[in-house]
């Protein structure tokens, strides 16, 4: 039986399925719960310098092929968040996700996360529905280079920029690798919109949202494929993984580990456990002896 475990940037993920940022990631209690339920690691909600309430409701819509969300980065601010985490240090890696609009704030936030004891920092350069943050930052290659370079210089833990889906993934991946990133997370949600025909209105309070879940798997796979072939640092795949089969496809595209978000909705709190056992079954069935054998296999 294949043992599901990866080492990546000095961290061990067992299984290599990590809770994605923004899902059950606001409180110590919920992060702890997700580890109990089988996650190999967890990413916190993206946290900024100051508290933010997020966008007005509706902030989520089920669109059959997936989910649109426009949470709008609600968070209590870094100081309050660290207080919330308190003494909670899980037995699995915990990755602190941060967002900001400039380099200084990214550095300050990352240092606070490191001081608090996180295992790695994830830089949110990719949220598509919070103006001035996320993808607005991630689409400015010069700014991305500056942010990554300076965060890497100022913290000792691994730094993972999280990228938005772009038509050119190659340039941005090479930039963050040059800047010293220890791995790349791809992708965040895809900017999108829902309109209700009966009322003639956009549904989301923020009008625009981010698309996640099964419908974005082909987009995520393509992005991971492109990142993998452009850089040597590991890729953490994300986007529409809800089954063991999805997971295998993502590893074959070049992921060294995966993040799970919407699958908590599609499969339940124990999504990681279910997906792990499906992966093991499929790997055995296809005759693979280890997970390493399939990482990047699609690049033959």
């Amino acid at each position, binding site marked *: 039986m294949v043992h599901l475990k990866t080492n990546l940037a000095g961290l061990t993920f067992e299984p290599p399925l990590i809770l994605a940022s*923004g*899902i*059950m*990631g*606001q*409180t110590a*209690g*919920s992060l*702890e*719960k997700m580890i*109990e339920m089988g996650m190999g690691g967890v990413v916190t*909600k993206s946290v900024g310098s100051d*508290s*933010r*309430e*997020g966008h*007005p*409701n*509706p*902030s*989520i*819509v*089920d669109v*059959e092929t997936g*989910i649109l*969300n426009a*949470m709008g980065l*609600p*968070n*209590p*601010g870094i100081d*309050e*968040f660290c207080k*919330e985490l308190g003494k909670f240090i899980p037995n699995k890696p915990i990755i602190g996700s941060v967002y900001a609009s400039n380099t200084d704030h990214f550095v300050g936030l990352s240092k606070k996360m490191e001081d608090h004891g996180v295992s790695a920092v994830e830089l949110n350069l990719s949220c598509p529905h919070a103006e001035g943050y996320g993808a607005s930052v991630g689409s400015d290659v010069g700014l991305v280079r500056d942010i990554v370079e300076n965060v890497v210089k100022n913290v000792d833990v691994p730094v993972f920029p999280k990228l938005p889906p772009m038509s050119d993934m190659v340039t941005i991946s090479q930039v963050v690798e040059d800047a010293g990133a220890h791995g790349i997370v791809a992708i965040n949600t895809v900017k999108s919109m829902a309109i*209700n025909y*009966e*009322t003639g*209105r956009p*549904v989301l*309070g923020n009008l625009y949202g981010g698309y996640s879940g099964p419908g974005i798997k082909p987009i995520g796979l393509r992005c991971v494929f492109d990142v993998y072939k452009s850089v040597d640092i590991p890729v953490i795949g994300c986007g529409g993984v809800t089954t063991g089969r999805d997971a295998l496809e993502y590893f074959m595209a070049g992921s060294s580990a995966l993040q799970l*978000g*919407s699958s*908590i*909705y599609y499969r339940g*709190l124990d999504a990681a456990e279910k997906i792990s056992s499906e992966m093991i079954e499929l790997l055995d069935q296809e005759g693979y002896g280890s997970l390493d054998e399939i990482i990047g296999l699609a690049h033959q």
Partner: protein
Amino acid sequence: MTRMDIVEIKKIVPETPSIKTFYFNYDLDYVPGQFVMVWVPGVDEVPMSLSFDKDLKAITVRKIGEGTEALHGLDVGDRIGIRGPYGKGYELEGERVLAVVGGIGGASILPAVTKAVFKGQEVICALGARTLNELLFYDRFKELSEVHVATDDGSAGYHGFVTDIMEDLLKDIDLVITCGPELMMKRVFKIADNHDIPVQASLERYMKCGIGLCGSCVVDGLRVCVEGPVLKTEELRKLKEFGEYHRSPSGRKVSLKRPKLSY
């Protein structure tokens, strides 16, 4: 069902000066205690318990802010969006049930009492309100069960908190169900638990997604929108946050401790 459906308001009944019931056609099965997310197009989306289960379904809304005020401004024929039903409802076990209700909590308890009586359970209701004309569904509860009333100002029934009259009603009770202000429910829980009677309480937390993803409604590790809103004694006992604090939309802790229980 998680897709949003658009429904037309068929009937509006003013219940008290601050509470109205909105009836609509909706083809869904639900367990009393479950809730829906209600979209007021262009304004807000808010969680509401389903309060009626016959040919028409309904929500019973207390006006307290922008979203609920917009709902109160709607007319028959206007349209709202509904998604759900979400969460876990009441599990009506035992032969004798005591329902302890505070204010708008009657919206979630009324269909539970209706169902319990229909199943042949004997029900006693203890209704609490600030004042007589804010007492919700008195006639409805009275038709179904034995009713006791407490008001803060003594304008009807016992002058004081509903939790003060509860102790005397516990004889031979197999289950206590409760919905109302959290400090009231915490006290209900303690009193019933001292008598070793199981409790099911319907919690309220700030909700964004309603489907268990965003984490805004969590109490300790439990999602009120999925594992709740109705939680049982075994779960309630483990919660450190129950009756202590809730969270603002940003996730900041906000103390629930106020000098007085109020509906």
